């Protein structure tokens, strides 16, 4: 898990872009694409994103590894939508309550493309983001309250300890004689017990960490300085502009192709 969470040290320009800009870009793209389910907007956005991928600062292998959830989810969503989606147009196949129509196939394609188009920017942009830098950016650029941003960051940092604790908890259960049961019920009970024990340990550790942070002067309303400056530079504006452009092109293409369907309507 630390492999997946650890940010990649990107050599290119993307490494110097403010994490807040990356966040903004992901938001813009996602919101624009989520407003409609149609293959044109998702497809155009996807094509443009793929063209921009070489600038992402990730190797092919890293890219493949991190986008893995998408490659599993998109096909299954496509199948599900094709079988159960809203039916329109000619019926192509029917059995029981399952109907595959032209309309549902259309929708399936749109959904699949959208999953990829929305998922890829999020994953790729955050692969090169260090959580501490993101927190600095959120607090200094966006002026979010420092207590919450840094408190959240401290909580996030405790994740690394979860993995070791989980392993120890599993070994301890074997040592205590309760790790034998086969079958889903026994496995669920075991998992739930371990998860709860991990929760207890984590909350206790969080309380101790809070005390340590308070002892270092954190949490009062006194003005605070920042050791690592987070500034908004021209390349951040450029990234945001690119995202807006991609979103605009995708939406315009869909509207022009008469395929845009606002979900709220």
């Amino acid at each position, binding site marked *: 898990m630390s492999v997946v969470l650890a940010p990649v040290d990107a050599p290119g320009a993307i490494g110097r872009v403010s994490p807040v800009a990356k966040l903004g870009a992901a938001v813009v793209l996602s919101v624009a694409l989520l407003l409609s389910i149609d293959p044109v907007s998702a497809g155009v956005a996807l094509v443009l994103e793929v063209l921009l991928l070489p600038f992402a600062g990730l190797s092919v292998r890293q890219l493949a590894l991190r986008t893995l959830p998408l490659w599993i989810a998109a096909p299954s969503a496509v199948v599900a939508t094709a079988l159960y989606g809203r039916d329109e147009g000619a019926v192509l196949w029917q059995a029981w309550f399952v109907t595959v129509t032209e309309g549902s196939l259309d929708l399936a394609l749109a959904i699949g493309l959208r999953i990829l188009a929305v998922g890829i920017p999020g994953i790729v942009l955050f692969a090169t983001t260090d959580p*501490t830098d993101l927190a600095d950016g959120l607090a200094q650029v966006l002026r979010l309250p420092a207590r919450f941003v840094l408190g959240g960051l401290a909580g996030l940092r405790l994740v690394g300890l979860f993995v070791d604790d989980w392993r120890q908890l599993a*070994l301890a259960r074997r040592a205590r004689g309760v790790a*034998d049961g086969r079958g889903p019920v026994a496995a669920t009970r075991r998992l739930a017990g371990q998860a709860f024990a991990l929760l207890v340990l984590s909350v206790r550790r969080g309380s101790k960490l809070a*005390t340590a942070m308070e002892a270092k002067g954190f949490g009062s309303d006194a003005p605070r300085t920042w050791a690592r400056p987070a500034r908004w530079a021209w390349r951040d504006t450029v990234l945001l502009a690119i995202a807006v452009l991609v979103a605009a092109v995708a939406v315009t293409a869909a509207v022009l192709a008469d395929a845009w369907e606002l979900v709220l309507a």
Partner: protein
Amino acid sequence: MPDDARSPAASGTAGGAGGVRPGARVVAHGWGWRHAARHAHAVRGLDLVVEPGERVLLLGASGAGKSTLLAALAGVLGGDEEGDAEGTLTVDDREPADQRGRVGLVLQDPDSQVVLARVGDDVAFGCENLGVPRDEIWPRVDAALADVGLDLPRDHPTTQLSGGQQQRLALAGALALRPGLLLLDEPTANLDPAGVVEVRDAVARTAAATGTTLVVVEHRVSTWLPVVDRVVVLAAGGGVLADGRPDEVLVAQRDVLVDAGVWVPSVPAALPARRERPADAAPPAPLLRAVQLAVGRGGRRRPAVATGVDAVVREGTALVVTGPNGAGKSTVALTVAGLLAPVGGDLVADDALAAGAGPSPVRWRSRQLLTRVGTVFQHPEHQFLAPTVRRELAVGPEALGLPAEEVARRVDALLARLRLAHLAEANPFTLSGGEKRRLSVATVLATSPRVLVLDEPTFGQDARTWRELVALLGELLDEGAAIVAVSHDAEFVAAVADEVLDLAAHTVPLAERHAP
């Protein structure tokens, strides 16, 4: 250098032109505190004065309120919402809560004090909170890291630090605040001997260089005697029991301190009385053999942490595994206990132990392990499964399928033997450190395994729990159990071990190991 009104103007020099004196003065007058969630007061009627620059060692039985006092001095005890205060407690004549930057606090758990992911950022955290200007922060960070002897780059990940390094990091974070009062709450309890010395030396250097007032709470008196010039003993019911020069107080209060679990230097560690083995008796039967055992965390064909381990575990004898930090001692213990698969070589259980379950402990079913090999983990909290102590003790016997009366009988016997009867209905997580340790040992004994594996059993324990544990292990050895213990505690080795296995010769150097 810009003058920060909250800290001494220049590092290391006492007083500045009209600046704040480096050492803080502590005054407590009839002070008491009760946690909102408890009925009894944690501290009551405390009268104490600590002059600037004094170095105080605070002792007392657990429950005497030492940690509460330190937390209050640091201003982190929580406000009205969390409890009731009485009397007055001031640092430099002001409320501690108003003076957070003036007081530095280092706590017991190394990994619960690290705030940020990079070393430099973590040390700078305190300075940021106090509003120190940016161009002053990084020089302070570098100075603090140098003071504690942490020779690491600023972006070194904090997850890759040893316990001793993490404690020194916490100390550096406190020192970067340029505090007038430095509070240390059992800072070396969870460290190995090398780490203990590192932290103690770092504190000694700082105290000497800056004249900061120092208050240390610790069981290990001999470690801190060279550093402190005053000893204060708190009484369990409230108030101060003794207060004076170290040599005087340690002699005058020797019995009270020994009872409270303090390691009084003049009192030797008790050795367990072991039954003498008649000279002509047959050597004890072997139960487990390790043949060129290589251990690691990933199973076969994964990088090994230690290789070439040859050992025989015999009934009625204790084998203690020693070695420096990172030598792989815990991995060896877990492999011998049948919890991890050996990476190379063989771990063979003799028929006397296996009793039909097969020669390879890692292949035994979980239930089969219960009566053959019992494991006590380094952190007892990893082992707790049940909401009460009684149910916790019953987990093992119930997993074996024993009838209810037998389970109850065993549980009651263990509660009595390990003095846990008054805690039978308490939640295991709410026990004190020593009680948790006793409980984790008791749960293992409930199924009477023939081999007992203990991972750092005396870690972080005070002298009293240490004595009880050593005595208990002596009894178990006389009853015929075999013990495999991992420990860096030299006194424990001397008291218990029949055989010592030093892993230093078997460890695979870090450079040749890949990250797991």
